Every structure is written in C-alpha cells, then in structure tokens.
C-alpha cells in the first residue's frame, strides 16, 4: 500500500462525530409585575423555527440554534454558530397554558402570566 494512504486512513472503529456547537447562555432581562413575569433574551441571528421554549416541572428552558451562512474567507471572526441554552426555575403560580413568546430583531420576549389564584388581592375592610 502507498505510504500516503496509510497516513490518511482512519481507523474504522473511530466514531465520526457531528460538528459540535458551542453552547452559551444568552443575556437576559427579567421583569415582574402583579400580572406577569417578563423575560427578554438576546439571541441574535436565531430564526424562529430554531427556538425551543419548554416549561416542565417548574423549569423553563429556552434554547436556540444560530446557523449563519458564510461566504468567502474569514479575515477575522468574533462570533460563530452557537447554541443558546439557559434554564430558569419558574414559580408554580405561572399559568403555563397562557405563556406567550415572540421573537423580534434577535430578541426573544416571553410573557409568563400568573394564574388568577396567585394574583394579589386587595381585601376590603368592612366597617361594622
């Protein structure tokens, strides 16, 4: 066998892996008022169909994959394809059915409304 083929040949046992995406946590802002919790997350370059928002057992997990098309040779690169992943504990008082999410200009905005029972209620004091 030719020597060059020897060097380039890979062992068949070696498992080929898919390209590993670098995972990172997106920067988030969290706000709350009486009715809802708001969560804003920076996810530049992530498309709507590549975002996942799950609420399961008191854990909210958001993830988004960015795949950018590259044309030409890079002179320099400061960011690459990335997977944004972050988990949060949410209180049980969140009404999971009514959670809304929107994506605009690379910012994911989540509205987490509180369930009716959890909203603060003003009790009127009656004078006898």
């Amino acid at each position, binding site marked *: 066998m030719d020597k060059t083929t020897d060097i380039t040949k890979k062992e068949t046992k070696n498992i080929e892996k898919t390209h590993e995406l670098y995972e*990172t946590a997106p920067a988030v802002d969290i706000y709350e008022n009486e009715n809802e919790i708001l969560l804003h997350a920076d996810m530049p370059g992530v498309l709507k169909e590549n975002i996942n928002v799950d609420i399961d057992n008191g854990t909210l997990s958001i993830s988004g994959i960015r795949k950018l098309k590259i044309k030409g040779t890079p002179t320099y690169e400061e960011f690459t394809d990335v997977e944004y992943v972050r988990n949060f504990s949410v209180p049980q008082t969140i009404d999971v059915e009514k959670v809304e999410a929107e994506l605009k200009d690379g910012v994911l905005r989540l509205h987490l409304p509180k369930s009716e029972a959890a909203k603060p209620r003003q009790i009127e004091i009656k004078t006898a």
Partner: protein
Amino acid sequence: MYTRLSDIDRLFGNMSLLQKRLNNLYDDYGRSSGYKWGFEHTSPRTNLYENGDNFELKAEVPGLAKEDLNVKIQGNYLEISGTRGSETPEGYKTHKIERGTGSFSRSFTLPADIDSSKVEATLKDGVLYLVLPKHEAAKPKKISIN
C-alpha cells in the same frame, strides 16, 4: 504502524477539543451572574469575510432597529455606531438586567478601499449584514498574456 497513527490522530482530536474549550473559557467567565452584553465596555462582536470583489461584515446587534444604527464609510474606513435604549417596562419590578444598554461606536480599517455608493446594509434577526464592494482599483484583475 497503523494503530499508532490512529492514536496520534485521536490525540490531535483531543487537543483541538481542548483548544476549543480554552478559547471559549474567557467568554464563559462570570457569565451566569454578572454578564453584560457589553454595550458599556465594548461594542458588538463582528465577523469580516473577504469574497473576491466584496467584503462582508456581520455584527451582532440584538434588539436594535435600523433607526438605531449608523454606518459610515470613507475610503477604507468603516464606522458602525448605534444606541440601545432601556426596555424596562413601566410598573414592572426588575429582577435581572444583563442586556446592556447605551451607545457604542466601532471603527474598522478595511484591507482595501470600498466603493461606498454600492454598499448594501441589511438588518435581520438582530444581525447587521454589510456587503462592501471593493473599489475598482482594489478588485482582483485577470491579466491576459500576450
């Protein structure tokens, strides 16, 4: 010989993985608690590609509308500036603010002159895309041999 070479191959694989981890180390540092998007300290991260007649520049600018951004070009000098306002809604209590606000300005000296009249700028999903065609004199030319 066979197995040896594959061992070396695997070793290099591990080394590049380690290198990747180390490269990412700095990005992760302190991220979970005090990470700021960096408007206060630095400017948005950018990538620059060269592609024959064009340069292509990408910049991460999440949450910025096109009105918030300014692009200036002169010769081979490019300047991107912008501001990101505070998004804190009225009547809400703040739990966490990691996404920085404020203004930034970043300038570049490109490797060649740009034909500023043909520059295209697009803003999509929080990423600014600039296509910067090289000036006629800077374009690669094919020389025919007589």
